[in-house]
């Protein structure tokens, strides 16, 4: 009797332990690693970059990308997704999504209407990069092939990571953090912008990969400034670096300073900005202390680098250059866009709630644009590289 019970139980269990409901075989999934969102005639155009396309499977080599981009159109992102799906024989699978690109035009209309679909979708992990496309359609970025990476989305993702470490002209913003910043009081988000350099159409062709000079490539060198969820405009190269310094989001920065009629350059590492907000007669004043370790990487003018006074002068030149960069960023945020992208309002909200209650309503329009700053920049120039002298100075001595 007991054996019969066990057998019946095993028989019954066999029906429910066969696997998940609505499971999909790997072959039936279109692994999506990049999504682009464009707006055209008040409709969303959503592009999915499928990483496991079968094209060229038989004769593919390492430089050829087996990717395909599908596009769909609709009044909402989900409608565009369904439209896209009707053209695609596989089921899009977005758990491996690396990057989402929002076009400049779409971002200028506000991103809140676009972000819900991916946040709500249980398949989406929400931990992917979000960037903007500048002067081009977002889908074009997903279609621009790179000779160095298999997928355009991977090309963007790796560019973001390497840029953060080496150039600091990028904001490494993950999707959920970006949305968190939109929701927070007293801070506005920023997002990196990607441009395409070269022939956009030729860059989509695999022919361009066979050439030693790619027809086009992507460039990440600017930051888009938002107020709430609306893109207001862009920061240039130096302003971008300044914004990242003030937000404590830099790896290393290459700083150029005038040296006679030539240039000298220093790589700054361990750049830290400590921020303190004090109230003088109920008016907030921001005190910034920027510290960095510098290494002289190039100097093309005549200077005696063995003289401590000269080193001190060079250091001062770099400090004033850095101060200019930071000031230009503050000026951009305060006067041009009136957008607190540094989160000073958030700092007051968190540390001085009573004061924030009085400032909250006027923060973006009046208080932030009129904030006073006291900026102190300190660079310790500790390394000169392999040379003790400059070439110019050495030639002069000889």
């Amino acid at each position, binding site marked *: 009797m007991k054996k019969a019970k066990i057998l019946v*139980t095993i028989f*019954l*269990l066999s029906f*429910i332990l066969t696997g*998940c*409901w*609505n499971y999909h075989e790997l072959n039936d999934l279109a692994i999506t690693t990049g999504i682009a969102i464009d707006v055209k005639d008040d409709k969303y155009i959503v592009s999915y970059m499928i990483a496991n396309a079968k094209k060229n499977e038989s004769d593919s080599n390492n430089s050829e990308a087996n990717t395909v981009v599908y596009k769909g159109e609709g009044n909402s992102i989900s409608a565009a997704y369904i439209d896209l799906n009707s053209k695609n024989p596989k089921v899009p699978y977005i758990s491996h999504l690396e990057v989402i690109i929002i076009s400049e035009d779409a971002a200028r209309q506000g991103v809140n209407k676009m972000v819900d679909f991916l*946040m709500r979708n*249980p*398949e989406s*992990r*929400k*931990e992917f990069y979000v960037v903007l496309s500048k002067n081009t359609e977002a889908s074009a970025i997903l279609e621009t092939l790179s000779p160095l990476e298999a997928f355009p989305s991977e090309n963007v993702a790796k560019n973001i990571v390497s840029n953060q470490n080496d150039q600091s002209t990028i904001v490494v913003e993950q999707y*959920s953090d970006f*949305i*968190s910043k939109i*929701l*927070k009081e007293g801070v506005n988000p920023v997002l990196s912008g990607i441009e395409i350099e070269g022939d956009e159409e030729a860059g989509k062709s695999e022919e361009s990969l066979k050439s030693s000079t790619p027809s086009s490539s992507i460039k990440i060198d600017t930051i888009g400034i938002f107020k709430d969820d609306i893109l207001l405009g862009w920061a240039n190269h130096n302003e971008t670096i300044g914004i990242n310094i003030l937000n404590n989001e830099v790896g290393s920065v290459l700083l150029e300073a005038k040296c006679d009629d030539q240039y000298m350059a220093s790589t700054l590492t361990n750049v830290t900005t400590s921020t303190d907000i004090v109230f003088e007669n109920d008016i907030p004043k921001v005190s910034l202390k920027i510290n960095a370790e510098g290494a002289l990487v190039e100097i093309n003018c005549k200077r005696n680098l063995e003289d401590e006074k000269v080193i001190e002068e060079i250091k001062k030149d770099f400090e004033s250059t850095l101060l200019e960069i930071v000031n230009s960023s503050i000026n951009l945020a305060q006067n041009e866009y009136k957008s607190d992208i540094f989160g000073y309002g958030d700092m007051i*909200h*968190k*540390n001085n*709630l009573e004061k*924030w209650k009085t400032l909250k309503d006027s923060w973006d329009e009046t208080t932030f644009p009129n904030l006073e700053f006291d900026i102190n920049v300190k660079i310790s120039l500790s390394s000169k590289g392999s040379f003790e002298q400059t070439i110019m100075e050495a030639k002069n001595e000889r």
Partner: protein
Amino acid sequence: MKDKISTLQIFSLCWQIILSSAIGIITYITIFTVKQDGWISIIISCILGLIPIILYLYLMKFRPEMNFMELNEYLFGKIFGKILNSIIVILIASYIILYFYDLTNFITSQYLHKTPNIFVIFIFIIPIIYLLLQGLNVIGRTSFILFIFGLILLILTIMGLIGQVDINNFKPVLENSFGDIFNTSLTIIPYTSLPLIMLLCIPHKNIIDANKLNKRVIIAYLMSFIILLLALIFVISVLGPELALLYQFPEFHVLKRVSIGGFIERVESTLSLRWIFYMFTTVVFGLYFIMQYVKTTFQVRKKNILNFIVIIISIILLMASNWIFKSNTQSNAMILKVIPIFLSVISLGTIIIMFIRIKTKRY
């Protein structure tokens, strides 16, 4: 031996009963009502919740040979005792329905979002009924094994998230009024300390090392609250209150950020298994309470009949979770407003009446 249980197993039961409300209930209540100040509410509710725990332990010891149902009949007489027991069983059934809905909703919304609820319910019904029919000893041992697995997953979670904690997310402190914070702590108690009333279905004499009972229950209670606090700290400090408020199960979404040594990642499904263990154990033990009620109140002595009744009740209650709550919007509204009052009035009311009855020696 079949009805015996050790205090370590009771420890694991307490731990799991309290923490079964960690996902979808406690974090939801605290974040929804007082956001980053939720940690204060949890500490207050831990202190206040000790009162019912002490009362439960007192009642367990009062007549060691009796379970809760027998004690009520002893204190209030056959008829009134049975009525009181039936009211408490409605309370336990509410817990079972709520926790089981929470369990299936968590699974179908986060893991198997295209799977019908009824299918998930069916998968759980089989082991739940199997455990019930095996008796207290097997329930205790299963609970302890799941507790150990859960503990390992918890340690991995802490290791993976500790580096991402941003204390700034707790600021501004006391943005909400103390009244709101206190109200939230009162809302938490019905989901943390009050469900431990289920333990009263075990007669004190059936506890193997009963002299350690008080100590182990209190330690389990305090440690569970530390874990509840840690869960909230991770959710708020890693996601931030704004994002935490958006998610249906922020505790699950914070697990997506777990990274141990840069190579153990994308493990949220595995790490969240511990909540499934907790809710499963609580549902099983709640049904065991109802089984004891049926056995005592209706004097069902024949094992086959008892088993049949328990199977039917279990299936009805577990299926009811799918019928009662039409959506999680409805369950959330009830979790916040209706259920805490209902649970508090019934369980605290009963316990206080019992305590007064004992103290005034009117039995």
